[in-house]
C-alpha cells in the first residue's frame, strides 16, 4: 500500500543563483530520509521556481519496512561477574537496547564470546513519521546565505510564507515559523490565485493552471524555444550564455520572451561594453546579425504572460538607454585620460596592505617579466614589447568604465591603448595578460601577453605566500590555485623551456629587491614547489592520466612541466597500451628495490662482471644509456620510455640467473652498483614502483 508525498516550501523570492542547488539539496535530503526511515518509494522528483522548492515522492509505502538486527554487546567476560550474575555493564546494555537480559544470546567473534540481542522492530505508519521527518529536513537545509525575519529565531534562505505537505490526500501536521502546512499552494504572484492541491500527483498541473511552471526543464525549454523562434523570425543570432539563462530561469514562474531596441548610435561604443551592460545590469540576451556583429536589439524574459509586452519593452528600453548613456559618457571621458596619468593614479590604489599599491605591483611585474624574457631568450624587439606591456598592463583599472564594469579590465585596456597609439602587440597583450581567466580559457597568443601573464600571476602567488596567505581547503580568496594552474597551462601550451624554479627565482629576486620588508624563509620555495606540484597533478588527472601514473611520473620531478607532462602521457600510454609493459615495470621496480642497498659512490668495475647475464645487462645498459638520456633531454618521452624498456629482457635474464647478494663482497658491491646505475637512469623517467596493476 502506498501513497505519494508532496512537500512544497513557499518562500519570498529566493536568490536565483541559489535555487537549483537548494532544489537538489531538498531532493537529496528527502531521499536519504526515506532510506534511513525504511520507507520504500518509486522515485523523488524535484521542482523549483523563485517562490517555491518542492519534492514529489511517488508511491511511498504506508508503513516502514520491518527490521530485524543483531546488536553486539560486551564480551562474556565483562557481561558476567564472578558469581555468574549479569554485570552492571550487561544490565546497562540491556537497558540501552530496551530488552531484558533473558533475551541475550552468546556468539563467538574472532575467538571471543559476546552478548548479542536480536532486535526486531515492526515498521510503523509512515504518516506518523512525516511530521518530524519533514521538520528535520527543513531545519537541516543549508544555503550560501541565510536570513532571519519577523520575530522568529530561525534562519532560512528567505522567509517561509506557506507550505504544502501531503501524504496522499492527508495533510501532514507541520508548523515552522508560524506557518502551518496545508493543501493550499499559491499561484503566480499576479496572474494566479491560491489553489488547493487535492493530491500530490496533481501538483504540477494545479500550478500550471495558476500560471506557474514548476518544472525547471519545462521553463528552460519554453525560454529557449521563445528565443529561437524570435531568432528565426528576425534572422538574428541570439547569444545564450549559460549562466545568464540559468539566472533568468530562476527569476520567472511563467516565462515570456520579448525583445526591445536601442539607438544604433550606441554601437560606436565597443561591443564588449554594450554586451556587459546588457547582461550584467539588465539580464538581457544580446542580439547579433548573421555576420556576428552586434545589432541594436536585446532579448529579455518577462515573468508573466504576453499581455502588454509593448509597455514592458518600452520600459526596458528606457532603462537600457540610461545605462548606455552612462557607458557612453564613461567611454568618452576615459579617452581624455593619458596613460601616464592613469599610471600615476595606480600609486594610490592599495593592492594589499602588506604588498603595497598597484603601482608597486606593476613595478614588480615589469622586473619579473624582464627576467623571464631573458630566460626565454626572447629577441630584443619582443623583449621591448614585454617591458612596455608590463608597464601599462594595469592602467585601465583607474578608468571609469572598469570602475563600473570590473569584468572589462583588460578589454578596455586594449581598446584605449590602441586608441592611444600603442603597438598592436602591446595593446593585445594588455588584454591577454589576464588569460587564462578561468578553467578552459585560452592562453595568451602574443609573447608579450604570455610573459606578462606569467609575471603577474607569479608575483601574486609569491607575494601572498610570503605574507602567509596560502590556500587551505576551500579558503583561497585570491584564487591562487587558479593562477598557478594558469602558469602551468601556459608553460605547457607554449612548450616553454623554463622550469618552475626559474620562474620562482625571478619572482623571489624581484620581491627581495623591491619590497622593503623581507619575509622569505627557506620553506617558501618548498611550499611554492609543492603547491605547483598539486596543480601539475591536477592537470594530469584532468587529462585522464591515472592517479598512480601521475604519482610515478611526478616522483621523477615536475620542475620542467613540459617534461613531466610528456613522461606522464607516455607512461599512461604504455601502461594501458603496451602488451608486456608490466614485465618492464616489474623488472625496473626490482632493480630499484635492490639498488637501495647499494653503497653510495661505488663505481662499476666491468672486469668483475663474471656471469654472462650480468655482462649482457651491463652491455645493454651501456648501449641505451646515451640515447635514452638524449631522448629525455629532447623531451621525446615516448622514445625514451621505449629505449628504457629495451632493458627488460636483460634485466629479467639477470635476475633469473645471477645471485645479486653474492658471498664475495666485491662482486656483490659491483652488482649492486650496476643496478644502482640502471636505477638512476630509470628514476629520471618515473618511480615505476608506484604503478598499480
Amino acid at each position, binding site marked *: 500500500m502506498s501513497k505519494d508525498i508532496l512537500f512544497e516550501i513557499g518562500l*519570498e*523570492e529566493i536568490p536565483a543563483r541559489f535555487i537549483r542547488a537548494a532544489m537538489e539539496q531538498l531532493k537529496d535530503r528527502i531521499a536519504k530520509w526515506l532510506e534511513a526511515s525504511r520507507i520504500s518509494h518509486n522515485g523523488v522528483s524535484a521542482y523549483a521556481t523563485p517562490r517555491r522548492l518542492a519534492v514529489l515522492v511517488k508511491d511511498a509505502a504506508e508503513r516502514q519496512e520491518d527490521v530485524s538486527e543483531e546488536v553486539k554487546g560486551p564480551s562474556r567476560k565483562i557481561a558476567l561477574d564472578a558469581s555468574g550474575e549479569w554485570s552492571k555493564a550487561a544490565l546497562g546494555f540491556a537497558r540501552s537496547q530496551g530488552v531484558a537480559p533473558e533475551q541475550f544470546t552468546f556468539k563467538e567473534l574472532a575467538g571471543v564470546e559476546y552478548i548479542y540481542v536480536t532486535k526486531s522492530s515492526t515498521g510503523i505508519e509512515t504518516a506518523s513519521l512525516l511530521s518530524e521527518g519533514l521538520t528535520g529536513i527543513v531545519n537541516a537545509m543549508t544555503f550560501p546565505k541565510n536570513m*532571519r*525575519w*519577523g520575530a522568529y529565531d530561525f534562519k532560512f534562505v528567505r522567509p517561509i510564507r506557506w507550505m504544502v505537505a501531503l501524504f496522499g490526500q492527508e495533510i501532514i501536521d507541520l508548523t515552522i515559523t508560524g506557518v502551518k502546512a496545508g493543501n493550499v499552494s499559491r499561484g503566480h504572484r499576479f496572474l494566479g490565485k491560491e489553489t488547493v492541491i487535492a493530491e500530490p500527483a496533481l501538483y504540477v498541473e494545479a500550478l500550471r493552471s495558476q500560471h506557474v511552471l514548476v518544472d525547471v526543464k519545462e521553463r528552460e525549454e519554453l525560454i529557449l524555444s521563445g528565443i529561437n523562434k524570435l531568432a528565426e523570425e528576425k534572422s538574428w543570432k541570439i547569444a545564450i550564455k549559460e549562466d545568464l539563462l540559468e539566472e533568468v530561469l530562476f*527569476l520567472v514562474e511563467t516565462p515570456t520572451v520579448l525583445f526591445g531596441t536601442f539607438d544604433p548610435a550606441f554601437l560606436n561604443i565597443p561591443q564588449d561594453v554594450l554586451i556587459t551592460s546588457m547582461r550584467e545590469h539588465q539580464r538581457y540576451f544580446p542580439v547579433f546579425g548573421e555576420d556576428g556583429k552586434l545589432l541594436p536589439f536585446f532579448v*529579455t524574459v518577462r515573468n508573466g504572460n504576453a499581455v*502588454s509586452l509593448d509597455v514592458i519593452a518600452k520600459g526596458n528600453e528606457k532603462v537600457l538607454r540610461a545605462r548606455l548613456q552612462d557607458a557612453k559618457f564613461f567611454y568618452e571621458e576615459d579617452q581624455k585620460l593619458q596613460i601616464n596619468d592613469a599610471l600615476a593614479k595606480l600609486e594610490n590604489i592599495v593592492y594589499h596592505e602588506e604588498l603595497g599599491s598597484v603601482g608597486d605591483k606593476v613595478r614588480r611585474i615589469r622586473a619579473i617579466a624582464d627576467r623571464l624574457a631573458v630566460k626565454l631568450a626572447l629577441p630584443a624587439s619582443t623583449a621591448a614589447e614585454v617591458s612596455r606591456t608590463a608597464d601599462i598592463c594595469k592602467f585601465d583599472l583607474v578608468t571609469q568604465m572598469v570602475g563600473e564594469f570590473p569584468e572589462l579590465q583588460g578589454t578596455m585596456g586594449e581598446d584605449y591603448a590602441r586608441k592611444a597609439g600603442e603597438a598592436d602587440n602591446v595593446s593585445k597583450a594588455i588584454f591577454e595578460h589576464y588569460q587564462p581567466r578561468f578553467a578552459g580559457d585560452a592562453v595568451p597568443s602574443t609573447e608579450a601577453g604570455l610573459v606578462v601573464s606569467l609575471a603577474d600571476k607569479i608575483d601574486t602567488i609569491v607575494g601572498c605566500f610570503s605574507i602567509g596567505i596560502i590556500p587551505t581547503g576551500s579558503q583561497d580568496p585570491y584564487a591562487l590555485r587558479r593562477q598557478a594552474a594558469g602558469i602551468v597551462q601556459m608553460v605547457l601550451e607554449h612548450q616553454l623551456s623554463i622550469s618552475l624554479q626559474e620562474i620562482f627565482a625571478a619572482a623571489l629576486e624581484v620581491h627581495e629587491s623591491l619590497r622593503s620588508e623581507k619575509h622569505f624563509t627557506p620553506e617558501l620555495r618548498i611550499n611554492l614547489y609543492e603547491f605547483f606540484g598539486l596543480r601539475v597533478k591536477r592537470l594530469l588527472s584532468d587529462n585522464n592520466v591515472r592517479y598512480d601514473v601521475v604519482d610515478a611520473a611526478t616522483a621523477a620531478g615536475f620542475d620542467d612541466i613540459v617534461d613531466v607532462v610528456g613522461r606522464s602521457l607516455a607512461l599512461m600510454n604504455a601502461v594501458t597500451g603496451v602488451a608486456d609493459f608490466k614485465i618492464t615495470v616489474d623488472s625496473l621496480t626490482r632493480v630499484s628495490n635492490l639498488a637501495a642497498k647499494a653503497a653510495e659512490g661505488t663505481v662499476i668495475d666491468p672486469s668483475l662482471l663474471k656471469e654472462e647475464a650480468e655482462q649482457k645487462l651491463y652491455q645493454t645498459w651501456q648501449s641505451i644509456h646515451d640515447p635514452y638520456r638524449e631522448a629525455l633531454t629532447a623531451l621525446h618521452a615516448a622514445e625514451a620510455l621505449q629505449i628504457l624498456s629495451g632493458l627488460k629482457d636483460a634485466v629479467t635474464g639477470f635476475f633469473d640467473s645471477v645471485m645479486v647478494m653474492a658471498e664475495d663482497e666485491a662482486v656483490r658491491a659491483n652488482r649492486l652498483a650496476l643496478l644502482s646505475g640502471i636505477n638512476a637512469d630509470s628514476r629520471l623517467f618515473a618511480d615505476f614502483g608506484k604503478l598499480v596493476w
Partner: protein
Amino acid sequence: MNFQQMILTLQQFWAAQNCILVQPYDTEKGAGTMNPMTFLRSLGPEPWKVAYVEPSRRPSDGRYGENPNRLYQHHQFQVIIKPSPDNIQELYLDSLKALGVDPLLHDVRFVEDNWENPSLGCAGLGWEVWLDGMEITQFTYFQQVGGIEASPVAVEITYGMERLASYIQDKENVFDLEWVDGMTYGDVFHQPEVEHSTYTFEVSDVKMLFTLFNTYEEEARRAMENHLVFPAYDYVLKCSHTFNLLDARGAISVTERTGFITRVRNLARTVAATYLEEREKLGFPLLKKEGADLV
C-alpha cells in the same frame, strides 16, 4: 500622477497600515536608513512602524544638473516596520497599485540584492524590485544594525522616488518631472543641483572639512560620554556627510578611505549600543503599548 501626489499617496497608504508619519530629519545624510527613526529605532525589541520622505545627499553623484538621471540630492520614501509582517511583500505590491502601477500590465520582479552600509555597521538581505527592468525599490530585512544583531528583524522599504516618477510620468529627464501641475522638478531643484555640484567639486574648503570632521567626531564622543545618544548621533551623521564631501572632492586616498570609514563606524557602533542600553533603562517603553496602533 505628479511627484507630490505620489508622496501623498504613499503617505496615505502606509498611514493606513498604522505607520506613524514623521518628517524628514534635519541633518544631512546619504540615505533614509541613516535617519535616527530607522537607524536607532530598528534596534532592540520594541515594535516600530514609521514612514517618511527623506531627501538624501550623495555629493559624488552631483552632475551640475546636466545628467538626466543622477542627482546630488534625491528623494527616498522610506518605510520601516519591526517586526517584519508576514504579508509585507503583498503590502508593498498594493502600494504600487495605489500609485497606478498595475502588475498585470508590467513586469515586476524581486531580484536578489543584499544591502550593506559599512560605515554604519549595517547589513541586510533582500531584493531590488524591478519594474520593467528598472530598479524602483530597495527591499531589505535588516540583519545587523550598528554592528548589533537585529532582533526582531525590521523590514525596510526604500522607494527611489525620482526613478519611480520618471516611469509613472514617462519622462526621460528627472528635471522634467512634474512636482505639481505647472511646476517641474527642475523648477524646484535645478539651481541647487548646479550650485551644490560646483561647491562639492570645485569650491569646498578641504582643510576646513578635515577640521570639521575631527571636530564632529570629538563632539560625538563627548556627547556619548554623557550618554546623550541622539545628540551624539547627529554628529555621527555630520561626520558621515563631511566624509562624503571630502571623498567627492578626491581629497581622501584609497588608503585613508578605510581609516575614515572605520572611524565613523566605530562611533555608530557605540551610539547603537548605548541607545539599546538607554532604552533598556527606560524599560523598553514601546513594548508596553501592546494593543496600541504600533503593534
